[in-house]
């Protein structure tokens, strides 16, 4: 046998969709995490409830690199429909575990082959009711992998207890199959592959969470009062997390709610309700994905023009059109940047970690209310629906900013002299009143048509020009409130890289490989908001070549940056990846190398 390979490989499990494998796969992921090994898990699933092939890929990496890899050292084949492909995908020297009821030819001799008597082990367990057999069958491979790789069975039990919220019966039932698998493997399999896991201490103090849960919790700490939404993959779990955690965190001691969540009839209505609620003074949010964003465009334009605060989470999936509904993307950036007809500038937040999904969850409301405009938070399927290691969530570090709101006593002081769209402070941000204000001068009429500073209808050219100019001024003001980019510079950097969102781990790893294997050092700017602030312009100015990494076909961010920095447009080189999967570090590395070698 060759040298042991410890804590540095990928495990991919192929199952039929809807077979209950997510419990097994998350259990593996969590057990590895609890062993202190840096780990990531990505569910590559079809738009389907039952039957089509689905894969779950886990990466263990002692150095903490957690981007997806395209190499599969350990393959678990539970699905006859993807068996042949799965077998072909195993890396040379890798291991192939398969359910032995699948009777298909296996001709590879360069890998270790391990049959697993899954059905037989399940049937021979008298405690498993017939209707649960298929569900617990997946625990057999968990047990066999545990035995063959060295995964701590106690950590598996911890993961199952977490999954089943400490309910004894399902934990015991699933553990019995894990143990049966492990015992069978110990008695019948001889290890011929080199892959092992060993405990480390690299996940201490970290949590494991998905981005949609983080976003919902962040919104709750941001005081969300109203949420309306319409079901869509991959965004639904964000609203469902609000439903899960709001009752826990936001009920008064008397059991009354300080929030309302409405499932709307479609995305037109979901955003319509949010615009109404935001206008009337509630911290309002909706969450959707590309197709929903298309429907929301109409109200988004009104909210921009009428200056209504609200927060819109776009958990991006691959478009155009229905596209790849269950695959990740950063393809909405250009669309959202000017979302609506006419001249529109959007405020966009770009969380680059699970912790930032939480942070931007609350910060988005402060920005929306301060600037009286829609705030878009662009996450994606990879963040939203996969479990990630994360720093713990941090309590907001500043009080809420409710923006410029006039109540009865303010109007009393002003003797009723105010105008909804007057730029009193010279920052482009006007004052607003909220329905329910009982002062006789509080009311005003909101419209999507041209209006004066006093909110009266107007088609006067001067009035229109002044309004649009003020909105532009407000957009400039916004820059001072936005999260700054995170910039890493190293001495001797040959070029710069700009990226955002879920590509961060792959970019970090690619930078390491470029330096280690090719001696190419790079500076890195992780963008966290649009509009671009001065630090972004400076970063571009300071580098002769700036690679812009993103998940879409056309290099949308690269285009936006070029438009804003025409003098440096030729420096901005698009590194765009767009096949529905999260880009690998190797792909980014070779794409940049190819350019560098030109």
């Amino acid at each position, binding site marked *: 046998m060759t040298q042991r390979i410890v804590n540095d490989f990928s495990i991919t499990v192929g199952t039929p969709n809807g077979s209950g494998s997510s419990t097994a796969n998350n259990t593996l992921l*969590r057990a590895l995490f*609890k062993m202190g090994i840096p780990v990531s898990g990505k569910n590559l699933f079809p738009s389907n409830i039952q039957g089509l092939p689905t894969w779950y890929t886990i990466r263990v990496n002692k150095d903490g690199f957690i981007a997806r890899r395209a190499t599969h050292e350990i393959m678990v084949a539970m699905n006859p429909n993807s068996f042949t492909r799965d077998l072909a995908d195993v890396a040379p020297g890798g291991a192939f575990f398969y359910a032995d009821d699948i009777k298909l030819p296996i001709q590879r001799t360069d890998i270790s082959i391990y049959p697993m008597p899954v059905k037989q082990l399940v049937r021979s367990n008298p405690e498993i009711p017939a209707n649960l057999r298929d569900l617990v069958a997946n625990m057999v491979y968990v047990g066999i992998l545990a035995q063959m790789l060295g995964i701590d069975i106690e950590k598996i039990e911890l*993961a199952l207890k*977490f999954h089943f919220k400490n309910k004894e019966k399902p934990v015991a039932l699933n553990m019995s199959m894990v143990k049966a698998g492990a015992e069978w493997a110990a008695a019948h399999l001889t290890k011929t592959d080199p892959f092992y896991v060993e405990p480390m201490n690299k996940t201490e103090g970290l*949590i*494991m*969470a998905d981005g949609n*849960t983080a976003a919902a919790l962040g919104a709750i*700490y*941001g*005081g969300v*009062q*109203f949420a*309306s939404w319409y079901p869509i993959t991959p965004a639904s779990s964000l609203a469902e997390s609000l439903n899960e955690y709001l009752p826990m*965190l*936001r009920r008064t001691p008397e059991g*009354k*709610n*300080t929030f*309302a969540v*409405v499932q*709307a*009839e479609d995305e*037109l*209505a979901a955003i*319509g*309700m949010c615009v*109404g*609620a935001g*206008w*009337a003074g*509630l*911290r309002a949010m909706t969450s959707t994905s590309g197709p929903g964003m298309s429907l929301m465009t*109409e*109200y988004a334009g009104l909210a921009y023009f*009428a200056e209504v605060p609200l927060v819109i989470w776009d958990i991006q999936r691959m478009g155009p059109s229905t596209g790849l509904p269950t695959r990740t993307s950063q393809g909405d950036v250009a669309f959202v940047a000017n979302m609506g007809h006419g001249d529109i500038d959007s405020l966009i937040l770009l969380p680059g970690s699970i912790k930032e999904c939480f942070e931007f969850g609350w910060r988005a409301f402060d920005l929306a209310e301060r600037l009286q405009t829609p705030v878009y938070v662009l996450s994606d399927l990879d963040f939203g629906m996969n479990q990630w290691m*994360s720093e713990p*969530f941090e*309590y*907001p570090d500043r*009080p*809420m900013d*409710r923006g410029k709101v006039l109540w009865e006593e303010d109007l009393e002081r002003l003797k009723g002299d*105010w105008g909804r769209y007057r730029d009193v402070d010279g920052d482009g941000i006007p004052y607003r*009143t*909220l*329905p*329910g*204000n*009982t002062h*006789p*001068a*509080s*009311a005003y*009429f*909101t*419209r*999507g048509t041209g209006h004066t500073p006093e*909110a009266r*209808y107007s088609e006067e050219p001067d009035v229109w020009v002044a309004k649009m100019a003020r909105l532009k001024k407000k957009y400039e003001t916004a820059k001072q409130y936005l999260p700054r980019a995170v910039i890493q510079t190293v001495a001797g950097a040959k070029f710069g890289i700009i990226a955002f969102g879920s590509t961060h781990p792959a970019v970090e790893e690619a930078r390491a490989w470029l330096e280690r294997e090719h001696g190419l050092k790079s500076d890195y700017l992780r963008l966290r908001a649009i509009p671009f602030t001065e630090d972004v312009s400076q970063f571009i100015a300071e580098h002769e070549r700036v690679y812009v990494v993103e998940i879409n076909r056309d290099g949308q961010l690269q285009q936006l940056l070029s438009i804003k920095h025409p003098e440096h447009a030729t420096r901005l080189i698009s590194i765009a990846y767009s096949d529905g999967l999260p880009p690998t570090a190797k792909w980014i590395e070779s794409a940049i190398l190819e350019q560098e070698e030109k």
Partner: protein
Amino acid sequence: MSEALPMAGAAAQVNAVGLSKNDYRGNPTTLCQGCGHNSIANQIIAACYEANVVPEKIVKFSGIGCSSKSPTYFLNRSFGFNSLHGRMPSLATGALFADYRLKGLGVSGDGDTASIGMGQFKHIMRRNVNMVYIVENNGVYGLTKGQFSATADKGLELKKQGTNLYLPVDICMEALASRATFVARLFAGNAKQVKEVLKAALSHKGIAVLDIISPCVTFNNQESSYYSYSFGKEREDPLHDISFHAASEGPQSTISYVPPKPEIVLEADMVDGEIREVALHDGSRIVLKALDKDYDPTNRLEAMRVLEDAHENNYLVTGLIYVAPESPSLTDLYNLVETPLNRLTEKDLRPAPETIQKINALMF
């Protein structure tokens, strides 16, 4: 920013909340002279004044179209939002969560409601949002100059459109099918009836749909049209005489009840009928005096029957078609705190610092 238009001379009369009729007015109309919508705006002003409505407790909503412009013609002291075409219901639904004590007053048209906005219309019924939803129904698009709406008569001929091939949508029927809790059909030419039903609708808890036939004098007022003044004057058949009695009036008002005199005399000799009362949740009462026969507006099936009968026999049935006074409105279902949501502050809205450890522990 109110724009009250003070009347010169005499001291204005005030109502029980200390306001004069001027406090309920809006800006001058910009619609055509003789438009049914203008008379509806006037009746909104009169109804709110007579019902002692505090304007700051009303929030106006509209979509897009001639009708949707009209919220600027009344209640300048009320907040208002002229939203998107066919999308007023969702906006109102969200806005009214901010302060459950507010009453919505939406004005839409037949295109805004029954063509582009049918989806949202049906869903706001189902949710029983606490608002009066007026459809100023004239069977035609006015602002875009004369196209068919979804309520246009089959066979209607318009200059640039040819002949309408489709059967009209019945807004009251759609409202009933979607479980609206207050449905009325009215004729803008019968101002008294509009005003009384408006007062009742403002007291109703939940959605009150007022499908008001409101002739378009410019594009759809030909005699043959269901939506013309002449059709309404000749073929209106009210189910009852309606009067609204606020809780403050006490039971006395029923006994001294005098049937309101319609401005348009509809039948030469009305048959005196039974008096029927519907009590609303705020203690007010709708008194219905039967005309040719008794009509029970709490019976959904009967409501659908009279609508269908009017279609089959080509007359304009008006009155309170249906009411379910005791249904919970949307915000009743959400177990909200007593303070209006939009008056809550950070201490009510941000969980305590110590909860963050608990949340992190709930992750894995």
